[in-house]
């Protein structure tokens, strides 16, 4: 039997095999990730190739996990991974106890996972930790077949791991049916984005050519083919190996000519089966693969020996395949052939037997399969509880897309006449289905379900409006959401708590719409309402933030700041960790955002990070707070510190938007340092995460790509990145757009300066148009927005000037803009260019020297290698000495203090001030607290800086905190 069942040799794929192997193993650097996606029509040999490569890689010492995605739409989240782990565990021999216990621990983790507040991100982290333990330092390969049926959670996991966020050396090999990609498949976009990365290959598996077809057929037949037979097989198979193999087998067995199509081949084989085997094949077709042996036995009800004989017959006729975990049909074509063979009643009876067998025994995908079989058995009453259980099971693993499908199935079942009479809480089902749809981004569906729920009654008008508003806001339909919140506030049955909630959320919504005055009004209203309700801290925090920001935008920053600080106090007193965390987040965002009080913002963010970690919210909120701190530190020029903070934040292995934010922050540092390899790696990681969706971060990504390309002298790449960015950004994101336009103009100016690349006049014209548009729009924007834009527009003007005479005054203006905002890096860049422009005019050489020295000092302090070297090049060319005139006195003094109490030199008053600085207060706030003028505080602060030998509030705070603890 074996000779007939064994697959034919692999023909015509030797080169492919080699290149896949090297892409997944040999070419992967230590600690990096790689992926190969094989696409091709069904029967072209994808599964075969996966198996072959898997074996090769296993022999080469890799840990290979193999899973298959399922085509039942109601599968469960992460199913392919769970299946792969179980298979792997079953394959492990007893000598691998350590690996085995790691596999079981990971499987146990899945079993024990509960839908906690940390959500899906934490699950991803735990999975990657688990895989780490299983790999034990060996390369890990995840092989996934039928990826076109992958569930959303697994897709996210793949992107997370491939982006390197799991801190795992991992390769992914996956097969996708090309036919599926022709439809509107989500993988299409994912593959378009991924295929541009160096670590990813998308290989199209083409049919065999004529020669390979003949070779394969000859191998199967066991002798060379006649020219006519060869021609016939080539014509009929079109080079599809699966078809070639089957045709050749018929030819060998003398059945040639009987079967024109593959369909007929299989039909003939099914007909030839003995009766028990016939039953077995049909049973497997009705089951969810793989069908376990015990389950098949119960479904067909044959005695053991007869069952085995029947299975053997199915395998011998090449309709079934068997593996350790159960039986499968040999190919989808078999399923299609079998589908028309059974009467509906026969099929329903099979499903019933499956459902009955599964009811009495736990199995993989238990509830999902139960629901599936009971439904197809025509037993909605019994299917319903299983569908509900499956939905809850999916929610437990944060698979809201799958949960939504199970809830929807449950609703359909509940509507069937058989169930009608029974007491089903239809409103409850509707509510849960709507919530799941909302969580997985099916906004329209969530709203439809909510309407149905409204008609069913059982929900107060106010609660309904609030929920509808929430769904609408999530769908980005702000105007409608606003109306709903208003209606909620007007509803008669609104509780005071609900009213506070609606007002707070409305305020937040208005803030995002840029209607600051309205937002402020609503926020005040919300605060009043919340004051009268116990336990409404969350509303207070939210409304305070909306008020704080709206005040900041309306140019009363102090009032706004005070409100947000008060919210933090209230949250601390009330003690709910999430409220405290949110309050810190808002405060840090306010300071580093519109208020541009960066140093305090950084201090608050770092203090907040410590605090939320204590409260057990490290993964989510600590990560976000540290991202804010990193970006603030970057801007104030504390790069070394920023690097430390970002590394600490990434230790939590964040996912999604949080991860993107941090990777971009780290990349910004790498671009500044000129560490091209590190920057490239982070950019690819961001692109990998974004391939799964999320357009908001694309422009910062492209801006960094352009910046990096310019340091490499690749004007073409910089241009491409900017071009793409310009066509994909909304013109109301003025800040982000302004930065991008500057990069574009700088690329053209540098092309001009290099004299090797021609300036793209069309690009320049377009960029200037966009810059003008940005300037126009920002005139109407709030002050803080305008401040950000003005800096970049000054750079834009100066770069345009560089294309035409290079006016030093334009650069001087840019220097002033960035100095005013206290951003040393762009200020240093502008000084370099100003000096360049002055030297080109041979005027004010002394000023140019001074500018260069200042820029040099800043650039060196930052560690900005490419900028430093540009400054040096210019200085050498202009014979300007970059040496400092005054000796550095800081070092000795600092050495003296070390070891002793660093605060000893401070007066009592200065210590008081420093304590307040370390809390993140501004000078004005410290003044208010200590009843002295803001100016006096400024004097104290500068004395403190002198005595401590520091230059920033962050450094001073660090010393204070260190000594206070010691």
């Amino acid at each position, binding site marked *: 039997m074996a000779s007939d069942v064994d697959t034919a040799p692999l023909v015509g794929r030797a080169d492919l095999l080699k290149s896949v192997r090297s892409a997944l193993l040999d070419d992967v650097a230590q600690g990096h990730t790689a992926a190969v996606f094989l696409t091709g*029509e069904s029967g072209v040999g994808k599964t075969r190739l996966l198996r072959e490569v898997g074996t090769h890689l296993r022999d080469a010492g890799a840990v290979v996990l193999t899973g298959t995605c399922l085509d039942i739409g109601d599968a469960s989240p992460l199913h392919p991974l769970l299946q792969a782990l179980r298979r792997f565990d079953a394959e492990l021999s007893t000598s691998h106890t350590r690996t085995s216990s790691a596999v079981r621990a990971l499987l146990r983790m899945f079993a024990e996972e509960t839908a906690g507040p940390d959500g899906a991100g934490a699950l991803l982290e735990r999975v990657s930790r688990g895989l780490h333990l299983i790999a034990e330092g060996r390369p890990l390969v995840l092989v996934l077949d039928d990826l076109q049926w992958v569930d959303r959670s697994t897709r996210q996991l793949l992107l997370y791991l491939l982006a390197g966020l799991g801190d795992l050396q991992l390769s992914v090999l996956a097969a996708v049916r*090309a036919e599926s990609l022709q439809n*509107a498949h989500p993988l*299409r*976009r994912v593959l378009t984005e991924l295929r541009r990365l160096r670590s990813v290959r998308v290989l199209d598996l083409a049919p065999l050519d004529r020669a390979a077809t003949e070779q394969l057929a000859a191998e199967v037949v066991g002798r060379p083919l006649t020219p006519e037979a060869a021609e016939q097989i080539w014509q009929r198979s079109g080079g599809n190996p699966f078809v070639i193999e089957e045709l050749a087998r018929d030819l060998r067995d003398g059945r040639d000519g009987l079967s024109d199509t593959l369909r007929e081949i299989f039909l003939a084989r099914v007909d030839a089966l003995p009766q028990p085997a016939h039953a077995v094949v049909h049973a497997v077709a009705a089951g969810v693969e793989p069908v376990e042996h015990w389950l098949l036995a119960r479904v067909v009800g044959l005695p053991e020996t007869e069952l085995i004989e029947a299975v053997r017959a199915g395998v011998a006729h090449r309709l079934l395949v068997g593996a350790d975990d159960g039986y499968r049909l040999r190919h989808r074509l078999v399923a299609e052939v079998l589908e028309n063979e059974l009467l509906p009643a026969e099929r329903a009876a099979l499903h019933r037997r499956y459902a009955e067998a599964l009811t009495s025994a736990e199995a993989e995908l238990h509830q999902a399969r139960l629901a599936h079989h009971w439904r197809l058995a025509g037993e909605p009453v019994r299917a319903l509880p299983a569908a509900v259980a499956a939905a809850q099971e999916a929610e437990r693993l944060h698979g809201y897309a799958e949960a939504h499908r199970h809830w929807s199935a449950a609703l359909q079942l509940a509507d069937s006449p058989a169930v009608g009479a029974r007491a089903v809480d239809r409103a409850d089902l509707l509510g849960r289905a709507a919530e799941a749809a909302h969580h997985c981004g099916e906004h329209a569906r969530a709203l439809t379900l909510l309407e149905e729920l409204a008609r069913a009654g059982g929900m107060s008008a106010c609660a309904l409006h609030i929920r509808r508003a929430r769904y609408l806001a999530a769908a*980005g339909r702000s105007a409608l959401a606003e109306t709903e919140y208003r209606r909620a506030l007007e509803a008669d049955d609104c509780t005071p708590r609900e009213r506070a909630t609606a007002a707070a959320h409305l305020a937040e919504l208005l803030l995002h719409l840029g209607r600051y005055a309205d937002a402020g009004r609503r926020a005040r209203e919300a605060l009043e309402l919340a004051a009268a309700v116990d336990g409404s801290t969350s509303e207070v925090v939210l409304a305070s933030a909306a008020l704080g920001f709206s005040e900041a935008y309306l140019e009363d920053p102090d009032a706004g700041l005070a409100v947000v600080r008060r919210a933090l106090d209230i949250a601390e007193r009330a003690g709910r960790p999430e409220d405290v965390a949110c309050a810190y987040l808002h405060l840090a965002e306010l300071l580093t955002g519109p208020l541009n009080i960066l140093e305090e913002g950084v201090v608050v963010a770092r203090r907040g990070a410590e605090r939320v970690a204590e409260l057990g919210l490290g993964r989510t909120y600590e990560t976000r707070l540290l991202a804010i701190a990193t970006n603030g530190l970057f801007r104030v020029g504390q790069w070394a510190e920023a690097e430390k903070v970002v590394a600490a934040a990434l230790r939590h292995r964040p996912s999604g938007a949080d991860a993107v934010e941090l990777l971009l922050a780290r990349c910004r540092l790498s671009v500044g340092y000129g560490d091209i390899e590190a920057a490239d790696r982070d950019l690819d990681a961001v692109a990998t995460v974004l391939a799964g969706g999320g357009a908001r971060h694309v422009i910062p990504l492209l801006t960094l790509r352009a910046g990096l390309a310019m340091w490499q002298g690749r004007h073409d790449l910089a241009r*491409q990145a900017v071009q*793409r960015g310009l066509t*994909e950004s*909304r013109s109301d994101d003025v800040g982000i757009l302004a930065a991008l336009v500057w990069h574009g103009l700088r690329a053209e100016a540098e092309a001009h300066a290099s004299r090797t690349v021609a300036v793209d006049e069309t690009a320049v014209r377009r960029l200037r148009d966009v810059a003008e548009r940005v300037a126009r729009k920002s005139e109407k924007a709030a002050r803080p927005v305008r401040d950000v834009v003005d800096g970049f527009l000054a750079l834009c003007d100066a770069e345009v000037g560089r294309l035409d005479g290079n006016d030093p005054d334009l650069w001087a203006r840019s220097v002033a803009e960035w100095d005013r905002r206290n951003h040393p890096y762009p200020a240093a860049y502008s000084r370099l260019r100003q000096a360049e422009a002055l030297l080109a005019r041979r005027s004010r050489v002394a000023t140019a020297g001074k500018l260069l020295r200042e820029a040099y000092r800043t650039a060196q302090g930052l560690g900005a290698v490419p900028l430093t070297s540009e400054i040096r090049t210019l200085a050498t060319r202009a014979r300007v000495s970059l040496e400092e005139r005054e000796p550095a006195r800081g070092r000795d003094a600092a050495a003296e203090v070390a070891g002793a109490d660093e605060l000893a030199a401070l007066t009592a008053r200065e210590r008081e001030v420093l304590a307040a600085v370390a809390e993140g207060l501004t000078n004005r706030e410290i003044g208010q607290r200590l009843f002295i003028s803001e100016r006096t505080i400024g004097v104290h602060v500068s004395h403190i800086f002198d005595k401590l030998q520091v230059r920033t509030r962050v450094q001073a705070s660090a010393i204070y905190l260190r000594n206070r603890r010691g």
Partner: protein
Amino acid sequence: MTEPVWGPVHRDIVDLLADHPADVPAVVDHLTKLQDLLVRLPPLLDSCPLADFNKLYLTITTTVLDGLYDDRFVDPVFLSRLDVEFAARYFDALRLWTDSSPGTPKAWSCLFERMRGPDARPLPSAAAGVNAHINFDLPFALVTTFDHLESEPVDGSDQHRDYLEINNIFAEKIPGLRRGYLERWQLLIDMLNGEIDDWYQGELVEYTRDVAWRNAQKIWRCRHDPTAHERERSRLDSTAAALGRLLLSPLGAFLQ
């Protein structure tokens, strides 16, 4: 061995199609290069029916690109993704045709088959391409785009408005259309659709210009159900193919 699908420019076209453009400027670049190759394809050369379509499509995509630069659209993120995804389907069809794959959409193959003659007049040829591209490719491109942006096809949304703006561009750029006879290009195509297969059960006139959008919404609703999805695909393919053949028949010549 039989002659390669693309004759003397086969290698060049295969190389070009190996690249997958990921942004609108790259799509324009791609179409420009393709145009240069198509007009070198014997026997029809300059009058190659596919070149007629490609030229029109290039003009339209260039206008879209200019529109993106000029702030013409409300949601450029959506529109640029849609444009790339839309074009990708045309390039996919060309790739499948290059491989002589039976999977080549019928909507497209009826035009591709005419590359070797007999010659069809430029306007009906371009129309056949527009037909395949709008009536077959566009709904799927819309669904993929929405899925990627974690958004949905909602009537009256910013995306819907931008989408209709593209229709306007199509209408502006179709040359020599007898306006007295037919108001708009899109209307013509949809009217013909109605004659072949009344898919809209009475909604036809209301939604004529929105056919692809309606179809996208339909596909959106069944996108998790592979069987229903596939059924929808073959339905759209057959309808578009029937219309395409009609446009390329002697009857189509009346357009010009």
